[in-house]
């Protein structure tokens, strides 16, 4: 009934204040907007997953942190030995082995 929609507006159609997080359709786009100081949270249980398309977002987010840790480690302790350096060191070692 057309009248119902109008009635529903009266009861629910209040302006959404800027601090209320929301999920709204905007011309076919699905838009999640967090409010000021408010969060939108997606919570699965321990064994549940959050997926974006075929990607496991939970895994990937944890990978970001693993990556950061690895990078921090490389920054302080280096990565593997670049072949050029290994070669040069070998060359120098040989050259100076009789000293």
């Amino acid at each position, binding site marked *: 009934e057309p009248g*119902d*929609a109008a009635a*529903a507006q009266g*009861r*629910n159609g*209040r302006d959404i204040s800027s601090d*209320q997080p*929301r999920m*709204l*359709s905007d011309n076919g786009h699905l838009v999640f907007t967090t409010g000021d100081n408010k969060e939108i949270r997606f919570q699965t249980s321990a064994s549940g997953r959050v997926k974006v398309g075929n990607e496991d977002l939970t895994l990937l987010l944890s990978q970001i942190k693993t990556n950061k840790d690895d990078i921090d480690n490389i920054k302080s302790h280096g990565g593997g030995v670049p072949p050029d350096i290994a070669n040069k060191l070998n060359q120098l070692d040989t050259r100076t082995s009789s000293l």
Partner: protein
Amino acid sequence: LYKRWIPDTNYENETNWDKGAVPCGNDVVRFSAQTQVSVFVESAHAVRETRLPVDGEFILNSGGGFYASDGREPGCGPGVATRFKDPGSLRWFDPALWQAAASLDDLRRGRFLFSVHEESVPCRWDDVVFRALSSFRVDTGSGGSSVPVRAVSVRGKVFDGRAEFAQYLSSRSGRLQFHGSSAVTVGNPGCGDPSGCECGNSANRRRICSSVTCASVECKKPLLPVGHCCEVCGAIVTIRYAAGFDLQTYRQRIHHLFLVLPKYKSVQLGMSKVSRSRRLMGIVPFGASPEVQLTLLDGEKGAESEALAWDVVSDARSHGSVLGIAGAEFRASSGGGGSSS
């Protein structure tokens, strides 16, 4: 004709909620775990807590959706626990759940046609319309037979190709909106006969009439129109048509000439191509012949209907040759009747 499904599963429709009101920001909303429903959400709603079904969907109209309630929803009251009613039991073959019109424009303007029960449900020639800004759930019934129609439009998309609609039915929305082992099929040709087409729902008569509760009638000779589930008080005009008869044109003529008159404003008139078995000497059937049946009801004892029946028959008598009418007669529940030829 166009037949439109009346019920919806819209969030904004207060009749879909057990408390008779659309939930607001102080309410707790429950969908039963096993409610299978496709809900159309036209506008934005505050949410305190909503428990969703295990299988269901919310279709979000532009501007529609949900926002976290701040718990101070004005005019919402202290908050209640409210439940979306299970729409599972609304049946395709229930004649009370359809509106009929001659065109989409008439549908939009609310110019609906009255029909006998069998023809209130979509006929194989009809275009079935589900409201654009809505979702729904319709039980197409058990039995596994197909339910053929010309086309089905769902949320504005018209399906008239069999394969495409079958694909829609197997989609998530399709499975939530249509259930039952009888599959609706589209692509049936429309009615190509200007004199009208028989609805073809007599095979479904039992299913259709099982949804109908007949009111008691208090007239001398109640009538049972072909295709109707109940005896009625009123009149039945039977038109024998000839070459040149056009049902749609004739329907408009009757509307403009008579139904718009104040004295007939309470009369409901249904017009159908029907097939009545002819009986030799009134006893021995010798085949069926198609004719046009006008069912006239007025909710009273049938006096207005009978008066209109006289007018219709006189009109047919005066202009029959122009209209392609070979003869007309009527029976009234008062016991009266008349004919022309």
